[in-house]
């Protein structure tokens, strides 16, 4: 386009836009104002579509079509995912009266199983017209049994390491094969052996080696398998690594706490070898709790100490943090982690999972002796 012609086009545009605005009696857009002003864009099909049943991490694609039923061109200013991310392409971006608009959505499904829904919005230059809303909904299934295998090492003796196993199979292939595996922690390794009546399944044997860092060690073992439509299986693992001193409960669940309610937990720290020790300091690195420690038998040193954690919260929040217990034993820093949910005084709780280890919110302080130690 030559320069004079370009100038002419700009002039034409500048004179045209005020003319349209003056002719349009719809109110100007205002942030946060929801109006009932109808828009000119009409979806040709139900804007809330179902996608076929799918597997985790699949990419589903759907093309919505819509038509500009108004007398003026409509410019698509933005097409966006209301929550999360999606690849959304609109064509054309300026829809002439009577013309069709194509909205191509490519949506990556999450690893969450069950019903799923994705909402999108289309924002146009139409004065006063709210966002056009459209969505995809579907169902995500697992090709594996169990759907989400997990490796739970339980309490692990740092000096000896630990083992955990999980069985997994897929009834969508004759024989489940692991093509490759990666582990997010170099001290954890995984091997597979056959299971099932015809060797169709696998037992994952995981080993966490001696010398792992103290405290909660968690991560994911990612398996690539021969299940074509669900080839990535993420297997979470968790280990509570301790040395000679072991807590009665770990991770520590504060449970559901109401605002202003006083909550306390007594955690017993025991020397498995029977050595006597003294606690020199208890520090809450999360800054939520007051801490105290006393020998079980009332006299230090002792082979058993009670660490008391207490708190009262003044606002609803998710609480988590870690506690460092320093003792007079060589190399015996004991790291503990805690979590809880603080809710309003009048909040009605119908169901809640406070931690990932099956401790119910109502559960009280743990037993004095740890369970799950390897023989």
């Amino acid at each position, binding site marked *: 386009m030559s320069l004079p012609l370009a100038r002419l086009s700009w002039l034409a545009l500048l004179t045209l836009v005020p003319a349209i605005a003056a002719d349009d009696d719809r109110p100007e857009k205002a942030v946060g104002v929801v109006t009932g002003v109808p828009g000119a864009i009409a979806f040709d099909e139900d804007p809330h579509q179902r996608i076929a049943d799918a597997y985790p991490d699949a990419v589903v694609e759907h093309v919505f079509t819509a038509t500009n039923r108004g007398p003026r061109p409509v410019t698509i200013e933005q097409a966006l995912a209301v929550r999360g991310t999606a690849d959304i392409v609109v064509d054309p971006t300026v829809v002439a009266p009577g013309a069709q608009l194509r909205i191509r959505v490519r949506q990556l499904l999450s690893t969450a*199983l069950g019903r799923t829904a994705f909402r999108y919005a289309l924002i146009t230059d139409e004065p006063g017209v709210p966002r056009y809303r459209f969505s995809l909904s579907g*169902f995500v299934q697992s090709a594996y*049994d169990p759907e989400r295998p997990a490796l739970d090492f339980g309490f692990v003796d740092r000096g000896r390491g630990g083992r955990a196993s999980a069985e997994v199979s897929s*009834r*969508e292939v004759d024989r489940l094969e692991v093509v490759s595996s990666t582990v997010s922690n170099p001290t954890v390794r995984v091997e597979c052996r056959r299971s099932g009546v015809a060797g169709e399944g696998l037992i994952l044997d995981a080993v966490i080696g001696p010398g792992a860092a103290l405290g909660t060690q968690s991560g994911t073992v990612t398996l690539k398998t021969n299940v074509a439509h669900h080839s990535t299986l993420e297997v979470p693992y968790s280990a509570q690594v301790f040395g000679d001193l072991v807590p009665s409960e770990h991770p520590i669940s504060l449970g559901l706490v109401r605002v202003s309610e006083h909550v306390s937990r007594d955690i017993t720290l025991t020397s498995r070898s029977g050595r006597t020790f003294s606690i020199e300091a208890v520090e809450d690195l999360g800054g939520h709790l007051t801490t105290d420690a006393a020998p079980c038998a009332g006299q230090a040193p002792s082979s058993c100490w009670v660490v008391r954690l207490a708190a009262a919260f003044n606002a609803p929040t998710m609480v988590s943090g870690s506690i460092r217990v320093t003792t007079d034993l060589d190399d015996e820093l004991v790291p503990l982690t805690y979590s809880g949910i603080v809710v309003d005084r009048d909040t009605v709780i119908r169901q809640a999972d406070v931690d990932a280890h099956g401790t119910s919110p109502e559960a009280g302080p743990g037993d004095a002796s740890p369970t799950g130690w390897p023989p």
Partner: protein
Amino acid sequence: MTAAHCARIAGLALALILVAATGSRGKDTQGVPDAAAADPEGPRVVLRWTATGEDDIYGYLVYRADHREGPFRRMNREIVHARPQGPDATSDYSFVDLEVEPGRTYFYYLDTVSLGGHKRRLSGVISKVVAGETGR
């Protein structure tokens, strides 16, 4: 020839019937592969089940094995979707297995898939001999 199995799991009641049919078409074709219509005379095993209390059920999976103890393979590529009609109402379902050979015995069972995506065993193993002479 039929075999039946009844079960009740967490409020979901099931009555499962297996029908081995040769040369007859099932009336309910939910979950039936397209080949059913193209080969109406072929051997088939029809699984029919009736369910109530399906509030938390998204659908059903059908598994088959050559031996009672397995290994079992999923037979329905698409989930047989539940059609809950209400707390006390019943819904009828069927699945037609066309990949069968005359004279052979097959073993089946059903899983439910919950709205949360979790599978749960619904039925016991039920067997069916397909009528006719074995081809091998």
